[in-house]
């Protein structure tokens, strides 16, 4: 992957959501970068103007949720054009999307739905990533999903599926630590073993977020709702990821039950502290 801007390499970023925009504009926090969902800015409006002003002194990352890379409807070229226009306007240092699909038959299901890991799904993902990267003129990162189900006819393990995507398209990976933990708990795999199966070079970003625990028919299900602080086992997995991959731009995501901005900044500071301690321990950085 290309080198991230110095600020993003040094300090964690935060997901910037609408209710925090005014506070961030009034007093831009000392975070490594700001990540937004491009879909929220596609109409234009004052919020996009504010983001353009913030972009002057903070790296911006665009984290899409609507391309439906795994969808058999094909890429909505109108949506892709709007994304390309935003990329041109904001010059983000990262553009990312998901290993998932979001719509069928022209209906948008507003979720990141799971794919079966088959050759057919791989070909669909590869074709669409190629199309997006060609249109944007740059590589994207693809994020591992949080899953609540798996398909019996999957023939490829998720880390191997992601590896195939990177080899065939040149895309990078957004390694969502919380998603690995949530999916591992829900589907019964070992998150550490999953990490060990991911290649080092394609990883371009880490995501950290909170999740909730629901009981469904007597069974615990972890829901990736981004509505709380990062859970302790996820911090532990983050330390393991830092040990395996080294430092990467790291983001704190918080989308539901949005707290005061200071809480997000506290989580970002914690990510910084965890990162420095772990990387020093692993010998990735010298003491200073």
């Amino acid at each position: 992957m290309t080198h991230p801007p110095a600020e993003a390499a040094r300090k964690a970023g935060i997901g910037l959501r609408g209710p925090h925009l005014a506070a961030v504009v009034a007093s831009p926090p000392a975070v490594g970068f700001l990540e937004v969902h491009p879909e929220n800015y596609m109409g234009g409006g004052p919020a996009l103007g504010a983001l353009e002003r913030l972009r002057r002194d903070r790296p911006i990352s665009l984290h899409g949720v609507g391309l439906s890379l795994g969808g058999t409807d094909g890429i909505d070229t109108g949506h892709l054009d709007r994304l390309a226009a935003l990329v041109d306007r904001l010059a983000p240092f990262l553009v990312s999307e998901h290993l998932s699909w979001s719509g069928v038959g022209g209906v948008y299901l507003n979720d990141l739905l799971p794919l079966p890991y088959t050759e057919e799904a791989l070909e669909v993902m590869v074709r669409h990533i190629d199309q997006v990267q060609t249109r944007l003129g740059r590589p994207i990162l693809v994020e591992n999903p949080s899953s609540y189900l798996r398909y019996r006819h999957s023939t490829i393990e998720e880390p191997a599926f992601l590896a195939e995507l990177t080899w065939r398209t040149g895309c990078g990976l957004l390694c969502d630590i919380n998603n690995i933990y949530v999916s591992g708990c829900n589907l019964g795999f070992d998150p550490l073993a999953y990490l060990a199966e991911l290649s080092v070079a394609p990883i371009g970003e880490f995501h950290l977020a909170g999740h909730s625990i629901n009981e469904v028919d007597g069974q615990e299900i972890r829901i990736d709702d981004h509505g709380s602080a990062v859970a302790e086992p996820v911090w532990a997995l983050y330390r393991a990821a830092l040990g395996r991959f080294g430092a990467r731009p790291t983001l704190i995501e918080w989308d539901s039950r949005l707290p005061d901005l200071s809480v997000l900044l506290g989580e970002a500071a914690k990510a910084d502290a965890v990162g420095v301690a772990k990387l020093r321990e692993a010998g990735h950085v010298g003491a200073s």
Partner: protein
Amino acid sequence: MSGLRELQAAVGRSVLGQDEPSLDDVIEGDGLAPAARLQIYRHHYETSLAEALKSIYPAVCRLVDERFFAFAAQAYIKSSPPRRVCLHEYGADFAEFLAGFPPCRELVYLPDVARLEQLINAALHSPVEEALGTEAFLDVAVGDYPRLVFRLLASLRYLDSSWPVDRLWLAQQAGQEGAVDLDEGGCLLEIRQRGEEVVFRRLDAPEFILRRALLAGQTLESAAAAALVADPTFDLAMALRRLLGEGLVAGFSLAPTDSI
């Protein structure tokens, strides 16, 4: 289930609320019924769209209360699944839905409150544009004025309501919606971006007719004629000065001479 397309169609129907027994053979239960796992996605679909509607229609929600709004939103979501990815574009016809939703029949003003909120939302997500000053028109010959076609700011919207929806909207912000007299009559509203926010205000009839006609792309001559029908004493020159002075004109062109 032979292929990815068929699988996605079945999962899609399940997310939209249909039972899909065919998926039982495809999804690994891992200790749960496949339907229970699919229900997690269905729940997210319904609740996230209801939240999106609530964020666009907060006044409607407060006027009817949270539980009723959730009930109406659920019915709307069932009848109108999103066709577009950007959620701020979802629910553009929620007002029309409410107008035909039997449990809302008594709340005759509610669809227009929803229309106002939809227009506020649309204005908020419109491109920010620079307004033209009067100097931009120095080269236009006076004889060509009737052929002027203005391009007004992209955020401008107009609402003609039979109800005092502006007062209802403002009153519910203060928790005092009961203080509005519904019999006081309707209003003609202009909605637009101003700086970082969206504002709305009342216009009198000829000004409203003129501006709405100009926004629709009518020539100045045609729009002015419509305004003068509403009020033969309408001062067009002053109205144009206000239009420019308020920074509402983003561009202009001249209609072909044979079109007017």
